[in-house]
């Protein structure tokens, strides 16, 4: 360790990081996203992706979905700290491996090239419900919904078919079956 002369002790333990999806229901008011995101940055937590939008106009509720990584202790702190924020109503926490929860991200791919390349791109996306949103002689805009790592892979694979631009969302999550998170 460098001789930093810090005022604090350092932990030498390397703990395992897990990926968690944290869902936060908040009052849709000015600054609420800054409060949530600021809590993450201020306390040194990670944000891998973020999705946020109003989900209930009448009750004025927004739903924030955050993909984060951390040790079990850190993830626990994230939940408890979020629950302390005044505009936060409830906080759900899912592990990425959780089979009872659906996670999806959406991506838009712009492919530019001759027809055979456009078709090749579309074919490569077949597994992920591709939708052609825009089509010209030279280009396609393809929308897919998939898991993060699948979109990562497609972003690489489509390069050879003339991929010029990628736009993607953060993950959103929902439990399977009839139950909802309370």
């Amino acid at each position, binding site marked *: *360790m*460098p*001789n*930093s*002369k*810090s*005022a*604090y*002790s*350092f*932990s030498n*333990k390397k703990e395992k990081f897990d990926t968690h999806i944290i869902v936060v229901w908040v009052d849709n008011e*000015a*600054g609420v996203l*800054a*409060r949530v995101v*600021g809590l993450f940055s*201020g306390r040194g937590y990670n944000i891998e992706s973020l999705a946020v939008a109003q989900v209930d106009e009448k009750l004025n509720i927004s739903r924030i979905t955050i993909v984060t990584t951390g040790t079990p*202790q850190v993830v*626990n*702190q994230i939940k*408890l*700290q979020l*629950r*302390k*924020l*005044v505009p*936060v*109503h409830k906080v759900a926490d899912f592990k990425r491996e959780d089979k009872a929860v659906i996670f999806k991200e959406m991506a838009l791919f712009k492919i530019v090239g001759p027809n055979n390349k456009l078709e090749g791109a579309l074919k490569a996306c077949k597994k992920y419900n591709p939708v052609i949103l825009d089509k010209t002689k030279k280009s396609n805009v393809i929308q897919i919904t998939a898991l993060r790592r699948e979109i990562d892979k497609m972003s690489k694979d489509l390069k050879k078919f003339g991929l010029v631009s990628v736009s993607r969302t953060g993950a959103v999550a929902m439990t399977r079956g009839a139950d909802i998170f309370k």
Partner: protein
Amino acid sequence: MSKLYSGAEIVFKCMEDQNVDHIFGYPGGAVLPIYDELQNFKSIKHVLVRHEQGAGHAAEGYARSSGKPGVILVTSGPGATNVVTALTDAYMDSIPLVCISGQVPTHLIGTDAFQECDTTGITRPCTKHNWLVKDINDLADTIHKAFEVATTGRPGPVLVDIPKDIQFQKTKYNRPKKEKKLNGKSHNHFKQNNIDELIELMSKSSKPIFYTGGGVINSGPKASELLRELVYATGFPITSTLQGLGSFPGDDNQFLGMLGMHGTYEANNAMHDCDLMINIGARFDDRITGKIDEFSPKSKKVHIDIDPSSINKNVKVDLAIVGDVKTVLSSTLKSLKQKKSKFLNSNKQKTSKWWEKIQKWRSVRSLDYIGSEETIKPQYAIERLYELTKDKDSYITTEVGQHQMWAAQHYKFNKPNRWMTSGGLGTMGYGLPAAVGVQVAHPKKLVIDIAGEASVLMTIQEMSTAVQYNLPIKIFILNNQYMGMVRQWQELLHDKNYSESYTAALPDFVKLAEAYNCVGIRAKTPEELDDKIIEMLNTDRPVIFDCMVDKVENCFPMIPSGKPHNQMILGPKDQESKKITGKGKSLV
């Protein structure tokens, strides 16, 4: 149709309904409409400070000593940014503050207007919550909500930012709504079986210790009473954090003194060797735990705290009881009486060996120091101050540094709310304005700021406030001409490289006192100290007491860098044998 009030009037209507009697503030362009209304609300007195940071710390002193929220009124821009230190301080130490700040008119927000800043953005991480009021119809509800958030659960600071045009607009006034549960966030989440489990652990333990903190004070005087009852009923030893001092009598035999970096030998060793640690309203702060991997390795740990996020944050515990200290203690006592009415007797034998061990640690007398007849030892000064004021129900504030630790070690507190110090943030310059706030809340009481000469210069301008309002605060400066704690660390950890820790041009504090139109007293020798202190106590005006102390005295005992509780440095002699070397140096 009911009467219409301006936003400025509503601010005061709200304060009236919240039983505010004093506010600490400083006027400026963006709050002038509010200052206009001040004269129309006679029950609310304004204390004009000399710097907004002073307003914040004064409000903190007021809040800590009275149990009521402290209220601050500042203008936009620099007014708001100057108060940020005090808000952060209050956030760290869980002090309820309500800060009202002016803002530029709504149509100018975002244009980089004169004295504009993003106040809610800047204060978001140092408040429990804050609001920018953009609609006059939201103003009253927002202010009432602000008081509620500041004072419920784990207390803390809040801020309401009010643009100038909102202060002029008119609307109806809504009285505060009846107490509602705060978004499901309040506050007792424990069940009877948690209490049963605690009592089970207590009855099994042969080496127990209570470790209590500021949460006991924040829970109100009743919590301190219940704590005493519980400690006497169990016969267990008790130690306290810096912030918890006063919740249990400092001169009681069951009290082991403060724990932590500069805590007593007996308290820290008992924490290390115990088999049951009952944390009541403390938060396993790093100044308390020392090296976390070796913190109290053999104990079962119980944590009673109102804030769920404090549980398992730094130290994993075996039993968490989330709730208000007062409620938890009262349930515990009730169950204890029902189930184990003879607890004390049955327990005495079990813990007798433990007490013997504690007595052995005690006999080390870790707070002892080498006295002197020529120079005033700082510890001696605090001891004499304590002896000469202990019958007066005095209120003590401090700045931050060696003097603060010496005060915590040598001044014994018997009641809660008598000790105001900046613990979490460690804000130099806290004590003088805090003393102003304490004296405002308790005009007849003796209020002393135990200070260092470096700290006190950071907010010395508030002497002017004390003089203006006839607040006879006593500023007791342990003057060693160094930033003592910095000097101590440089001596112990940085090869005696005293880089910038000596103040080469200090003011003459006696003349400074005279310039502020208060009283200056200087003590240079141990012989004259008592007389000078008595002179200070007999002066019914603000006093700056310049106590010239040993320049190079260090604060012991000390848990050195990266060491656990059971490896303390006891004093100058011990220091040689436990020299901090190698890796430890980087850890502190």
